[in-house]
Structure formats: C-alpha cells, structure tokens
C-alpha cells in the first residue's frame, strides 16, 4: 500500500473519530454528572442532521445550520431534561433506559412526521468542497474541516471543565451531589445546563456528519450503540476516555474495511467486552475531565 492510500485511510478514520468524539463526549458528560444513560442521545444526532438538511434547504447556507442546528438541539435537550428526566433521577437504571427508549421512539416518529420517509442528502458548502493536497495525498477539504472542528471542540470542553468556574461546579457535582449542594451550587440548574450541552454536542456531531453520509431514519439506533461502546471503552464519564475510544473506533471502521471487512464491527464489541472484564471503569477511569 502506498503512503498516500494509508494516509487517506488514516484521515478517514480521524474524520469518523471526530464525529464520534463530539457525540460521545456529550454522552459521557451527561453520565458523569447526572448519572443518566441517555438512549435518546442518538436522537439529538439525528435531529442535528435533519435540521441541517432543513436549514440548508431553506436558507441555502450550510453555515447557518452549523450555528443554529446544535442550539435547537440544545433547547430540545433542556426541555427533555426538565420535563422527562428530572422525575427519574432517583430511579434505578432500568427505568432510565425505559424512559429514554420511549423518548427515542417518540423523537424518531416526530422526525418521520416532519421529514417523511425518504432519505436526504446535504452537500457541503462551496468553500469546503473539492480536495486538498496534503503530504502527497489528495483528500476532501470538508473532512479536514470536520477534523479541525473536532479538535476545537475538544479544546473547548477541556477549557470549560478545567479553567472555568462552571467547569469546577460540574466536576464537583459529578463527584458528590450532596456536597455540591451543600456548597451552594444550584444542582438542578447545573444538571439542566449539562444536559443541554450534551445535546448541543450531539446535534453538532449530526450537523458535521450530514454532508458525509445520507440522512435517514434509524440513524439514532445505530449511532447510540457506537457511542455507548466508545464511552464504555474510554470510561463512563471521562472526556479524554471518549477521545481515545473515538480514535480507536474511527480507525477500526476505516482500516477494518480494508483488512477485516467481514468482522470489523465485532472487534469494537470484543474490545468493549475486554475492557469491561479487565478494567470495568474504562481506559481512563471515571472522573469527569
């Protein structure tokens, strides 16, 4: 294999990894702070993609979608948290799963009502179309854009969690809710904010993924299982863990098509199982940040 092809595969894996990372970091953040496993997280991803289609369709401009679609998802997330998630904080995990599964079904059909059953496609903006030459490899410009945004999001989250007061509140609440309460942190409000951020991230991932693939129903069901695998491998609640998990899965998807086209998907689950058996807390433990 030439270096050029290898690099193309590597970049493919990196692009995938970045879209995974953005959505997985949202999922893991929500779990880390709220201790909620949200099966409807993939639904925000799907909503982000569909909103992207709609906004580019109406406004003719991908950039508006990039800015607004994640915020619409965030608003949806905030509403979801306040109305549906709040009542179940004390309940055991099976109920959370049942509830979020119901939400997933609900959102899936709402998408169906508004956008019908046909699949949609979105074209990347003109300025990002075409290929770029890097290290002798010709690679789509848009994919580079996705990679860069992924890195920026990672940096943004890191700054948020470590350098801001808000971030300190998040980390405090994830360690111990009662103590955090005692310290005067308005925990319910914090939870809503975190859930909103998580939804924002999932929506953003959907926006970025939209031009890369076809947009259709059932995106939610497949995406959520991949996101779950990633956060388990990386460590439930750990953002750097989500990054590692995403990189792993992204490259696996990419090189797997080349070398182990038959069972590449199984490897992800095998890895997930190995981690759970050897080091259940994931590669990087379970502290947020």
């Amino acid at each position, binding site marked *: *294999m*030439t270096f050029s*092809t290898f690099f*193309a*595969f590597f970049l*493919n894996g990196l692009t995938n990894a970045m879209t995974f990372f953005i959505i997985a970091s949202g999922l893991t953040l929500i779990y880390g702070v709220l201790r909620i496993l949200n099966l409807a997280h993939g639904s925000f991803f799907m909503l982000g993609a569909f909103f992207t289609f709609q906004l580019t369709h109406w406004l003719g401009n991908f950039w508006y979608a990039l800015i607004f679609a994640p915020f619409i998802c965030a608003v949806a997330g905030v509403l979801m948290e306040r109305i549906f998630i709040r009542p179940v904080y004390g309940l055991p995990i099976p109920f959370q799963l049942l509830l979020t599964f119901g939400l997933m079904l609900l959102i899936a059909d709402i998408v*169906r*009502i508004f956008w*019908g*059953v*046909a*699949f949609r*496609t979105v*074209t990347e903006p003109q300025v990002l*179309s*075409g*290929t770029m030459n890097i290290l002798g490899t*010709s690679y*789509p410009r848009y994919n580079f854009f996705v990679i860069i945004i992924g890195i920026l999001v990672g940096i943004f989250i890191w700054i948020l969690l470590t350098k801001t007061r808000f971030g300190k509140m998040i980390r405090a609440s994830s360690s111990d809710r009662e103590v955090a309460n005692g310290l005067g942190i308005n925990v319910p409000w914090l939870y809503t904010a975190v859930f909103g951020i998580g939804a924002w991230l999932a929506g953003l991932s959907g926006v970025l993924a939209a031009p*890369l*693939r*076809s947009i*259709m*129903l*059932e*995106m939610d069901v497949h995406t959520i299982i991949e996101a779950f695998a990633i956060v388990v491998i990386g460590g439930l609640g750990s953002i750097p863990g989500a990054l590692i998990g995403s990189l792993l899965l992204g490259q696996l*998807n*990419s090189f797997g*098509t*080349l070398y*182990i*086209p*038959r069972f590449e998907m199984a490897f992800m689950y095998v890895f997930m199982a190995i981690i759970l058996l050897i080091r259940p807390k994931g590669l990087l433990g379970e502290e947020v940040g």
Partner: protein
Amino acid sequence: MSKKVSRRKFLKDAGLFGAGMIGVPLLKGVSRGPSNAWAAAKPIKFGGIYSLSGVVAAWGKAGQQGAMMAAMEINQAGGILKRPVECKFEDDACNPEFGVRKTRRLVLDWGADFLHGFNHSGVALSAVPVLPELKRMLLIPCASSPAITTEAFNKYVFRPRANVYQSGAAAGVIASKMPHKKWTVIGPDYSFGWDAWGAFFYHLQKRKPDVECMQIQAWPKFAAGDFTSYIVKLLEAKPDAVYTPLWGGDFVTFLKQAKRYGFFEKIGAVITEGGLAVDGFYALSTKGGTESEVPEGVWGAAHGYWFDHPKTEKNQKWVEKFMSIYGEYPHNVAHDAYGCMYLYKKAIEKVKSINTDAVIEAMETMEFDTPGYARKMRKEDHSAVCEVPYGFTKKDPEKVGIAMNLVDIRDAPGKDVIEPIEDVLERRAKRTPPPWMKYVIKG
C-alpha cells in the same frame, strides 16, 4: 420550468407524506356503468407490499404509482369481471420481518385476493414461503434475485420482469465489447448484490475469457450511508472497470461521495444495474433540475425500463399520461407494477374467476404486454422472457427535472438472456448455490 418542478415536488412530498401514513383503500367505484350494479359488486382486493420508507422509498412509491394508475384505468373501463378493483398498500421498510407480517396482515385482516410487490429481494425471499399457507398469488415487479424463482420457488410467486441473471447477461454483452480486463464491484451485502455481480461476471467471462475478477471487492451493507472507505479501497486497487448493483438511495450517496475522490475519472467504465433509475436522476439533479451531478458515460439498465425507450407510440403515450398524473417520469417499478395489474386482469378474465389455482394456471403460460415491452411467462419457474435494455448517460436539457438521459439503448433479446430452464431445475433440485457465487470475494 418552475411550475412543473414545484408541482412535481409537491406531488413527491405529498406522496412521501402519504406513504408515511398507512395504506389507503382506494378507487372503489370510480367508473361508469349502472351505478347500482357497480356499487353492489364486491370489489376484488389487491394488496401491495412495497418499501415505502427508508433508503429506497422512491422505489416503493413508484410501485404504488404504477399500481394505482392501472387500477384507476381498469375501474374506469368497468373493472375486472364487472367488479371494481380495490387497492391497499403496506410498507415493509426493507425489513424482512415486516414483509412477512404485512403480507399476512393484508390477506388475513384485510382479505386481499391477490398480492403484488416487494422491492428488496431479501424481503421478498422471506415473504414468499408464507404464500402457500395463505394460498395467495404474488406478482413481483421489482425484486430481482434469481433465488426467488429457484431455491425459494413455490407455485404462488410470479415475476413478470427480468431477474439479475438476465440483466447480467445483457450487461455481459456490453462489457465484453469493452477493452477492460480487471473488473471489480461495489455492491450491497445481500443476495441481490451478490447475484447481480456474480451473474454479470459469469456472463462476461463466458464471452471474454481473459477478464479478471479482482480479489479486492467492496461489499458495504445495504443502506450503509458512508461509502468513503470502500471507495478509497477500490481506487487503491486500480481496477479497469467497476460494476455496481447499488440502488436507490445507496447509489445516490455513493455517487456523491465517489465524485469527491474523482472516481469516475479514474475508472475506465462503470456499469450500474439499477442505480440509474429515474429516482436517482431526480435526486442528483441540481439547480432546480437544469443540471445534474451524474457523470456522462455511465452505463445503466435502469433496472429493466427507461421511460424514453422504446420510442413506440404506445410507450410514449403512456409516459405522457403518467407525467400528467404524477408530474414526473415513470420509474421502472411503476412501469412493471402497472404491468402486473394488467397481467392480473388478463389472467382473471381468461378463467372468469378469482380462484387462485385457476388464475395461476392461466398465468403460467401467458403472453402479456407492458407499456414498453411484450413479454411471456415461463411455466416452470414463473419468470418472464423479456428484453433487458442498457444504455449510457448523456446530458439532455430537454428532459425536465433531470437534465440527463440514457441514450443508445439496446435491448438484449429475451430468449438470449433468460437462464436455461434445465439449469434452474437442477439448482432447485440439488439446492446448490449458484455457480456465480465464486466471484463474490469478501476477504
């Protein structure tokens, strides 16, 4: 231009939205004739199961369009045996489990007398085995894996159109005239994809023994959504030519992604069995339908029918009528679903009864017409002796909304391309996999 395009879009959107709601019982009592007798006549119920949602929703919708158009016409002309035709449609969502359930539901709950449908071969293969317990006929206007009439065959299933053995033979003729030696495939990972490629290469190699079936092939799952890794993998292997059974939304997505990598410039020839059906053209048209993303020079069969061919008066009139009702060019599935309804009519009227066994017996040896072609049913496996068209893409601004056309279409003669019946019967008896499966290499 804008008026026609927006009407088409409206009908399309309305149709899609309508497809989201469950089957509409239609068309009862739309005709002349003494209203008392007509109103009192018990309708003959035709149940249609198509993929009305998902990646190939346009193909399911086309089936609905064709069947409804035929049903309306038939009712306007007095129905079948002076009874009105009633239609109901169910969505299988490309899901074999749904296919079985909906088939059962149409017969047991709604009381369908006759069935038609199935776009996806996998779904069809699952549904065919339940026909004997339901004792109902099924006419298939789209799904084209040969397994349906070979391994999975029972007397209730009919396929009044070509299967991929036949279209593979037609493609093999064309490919054998090309100088390309190294062929590979990117296709959906299920029976239709395997059979389409395998049969094609099987025929190609018989005509041109020096071609090479490359070891590196791409088999993304059906409705994959992201083909980029496969595209890079194929380009790396540097094939001379590529055959692709990708269809519906998969083909559209693939084409968009492949263009980013300069796929069509790097590959000598691309042949697609069903990718360039009319829905693909609509999806890939840009700037309000005046331009297209489809490259020129891609070979396609449009899955057995292209509206602009043959240029007979009958076909052209039909296309015009279709356009006036639906605002778009007819899809091949619409053409064949239309043909299915009329085939039913012909067979039922011949035996003057709706008794399933009698109609089967009449239909097995029947000659019948579709708007484009004249076909004949073969008794032993209920497949059709029919032509298979192949042409290549070229810009054509006169084609409203798609700006492209398939030109230089030649029809491979029916009796040349159909699989010899001895082979079919032998495979059925021995239950061996088809000889072309050895060309499917998955690594």
